[in-house]
């Protein structure tokens, strides 16, 4: 026993070192899982309050309030445009069918939020917003700014939420070339925060430099047709059946201040259908 104690005392420093290294490795590996505890992200109470305080100090109060009101107005108008578009499409179908019921439920709603923390230098970037579960924010909701898409909510606390930025190498978004049916997968490859790549574009797809890339609408996170970026040029691909387009992103990630979170009221219904698919496949 005494020998054991002497051994521990003699090599105590190494034990401490090994303990901290192992603990760091455990934290490192566990942080790669998407579903992290809210306490281990920038959406926790301490981090968010520090960032919130810093934002309050650095923000220009008048400009912020004016900006927020404009954003709210913009959000409601955008929501109205999207719903009118969908109603119009519905009307066209109904007119064809000689149906009289032109009413349709509003599908998308927007919640305005301020960005209280944002990073662009890591391979996996996140941002923190000052809206949480109390405002109806749930993981999986899409986030946009006035120029284009920004990311997807990853963890929602009561008053804050963490968003996986578009500038995150692990996150892909379903997009398409505007006015066409050519779908691709948008991915960021690190480095320049203004450049991303539209992958898996079919070989026969027609495109021109300057074409707009928009969301495909194949998820509940983003409605169809939200701006993402513009095509710069084609880059080399390892797959002969598909090619890759280099995209200049429209959102300015260096200067994100106010964003909008998209709520899809059909989300639960669509998700439950996906669950149904999984059950039947089993």
């Amino acid at each position: 026993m005494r020998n054991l104690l002497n051994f521990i005392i003699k090599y105590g420093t190494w034990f401490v070192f090994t303990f901290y290294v192992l603990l760091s490795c455990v934290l490192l590996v566990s942080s790669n899982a998407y579903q992290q505890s809210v306490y281990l992200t920038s959406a926790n109470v301490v981090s968010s309050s520090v960032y919130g305080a810093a934002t309050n100090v650095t923000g220009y109060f008048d400009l912020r309030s004016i900006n927020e009101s404009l954003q709210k107005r913009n959000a409601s108008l955008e929501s109205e445009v999207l719903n009118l578009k969908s109603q119009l499409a519905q009307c066209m179908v109904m007119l064809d069918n000689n149906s009289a019921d032109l009413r349709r439920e509003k599908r998308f709603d927007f919640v305005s939020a301020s960005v209280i923390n944002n990073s662009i230098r890591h391979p996996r970037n996140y941002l923190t917003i000052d809206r949480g579960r109390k405002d109806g924010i749930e993981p999986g909701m899409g986030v946009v700014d006035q120029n284009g898409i920004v990311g997807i909510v990853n963890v929602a606390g009561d008053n804050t939420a963490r968003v996986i930025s578009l500038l995150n190498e692990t996150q892909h978004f379903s997009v398409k070339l505007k006015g066409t049916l050519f779908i691709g997968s948008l991915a960021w490859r690190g480095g320049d925060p203004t450049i991303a790549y539209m992958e898996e574009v079919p070989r026969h797809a027609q495109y021109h430099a300057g074409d707009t890339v928009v969301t495909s609408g194949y998820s509940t996170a983003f409605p169809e047709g939200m701006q993402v970026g513009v095509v710069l040029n084609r880059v080399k691909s390892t797959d002969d059946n598909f090619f890759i387009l280099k995209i200049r992103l429209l959102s300015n990630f260096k200067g994100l201040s106010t964003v909008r979170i998209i709520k899809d009221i059909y989300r639960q219904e669509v998700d439950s259908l996906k669950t149904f698919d999984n059950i039947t496949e089993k």
Partner: protein
Amino acid sequence: MTGKEVFNYIALSIVLLLAQVLICNHIVLFNLAMPIVFIYVIIRLPVNLGMSMLYTVAFTSGVLVDLFSDTMGVNALACTLLGALKRPVLFAYVPRDDKTKTMTPTISQLGLAPYCKYLLTMVTVYCLMVFSIEFFNFADIKDVLLMSAGSSAFSFLILLSIDSLSIPAKKTM
């Protein structure tokens, strides 16, 4: 260490930590150079401080920065390893004797040239470790090296300017 010195180190740690997460984390020059200032405390801790305490301070600093940066474990691991490398790096540039075994690594105690070498090595080693852990992919080795070089140079200049603030001004007649 006296109580006052402990207090000074804690205050310096808090200031540098806040500077790191609120300012430095948001500065990226040419998409490759980011200043890392919070490791200054690990670099400046006295040589005779117990290694267990050094590891604890290093790990805690790293975890706190990770908590704010959504990089859980990255800085914690790099800081702990930096703590382990502190003495070997220092004694690579200064002789190991009774005087140096109890000193605090500063410009006044080491001299400008050895201190600069020590500081630059520590900062470069830290940047290489942190970016390697963060990218965790040999395919990104070019990015790791570029970001390490840019961030090391930028951080070295900032830490040296923090040091220059602590040098007492020469008395004028």
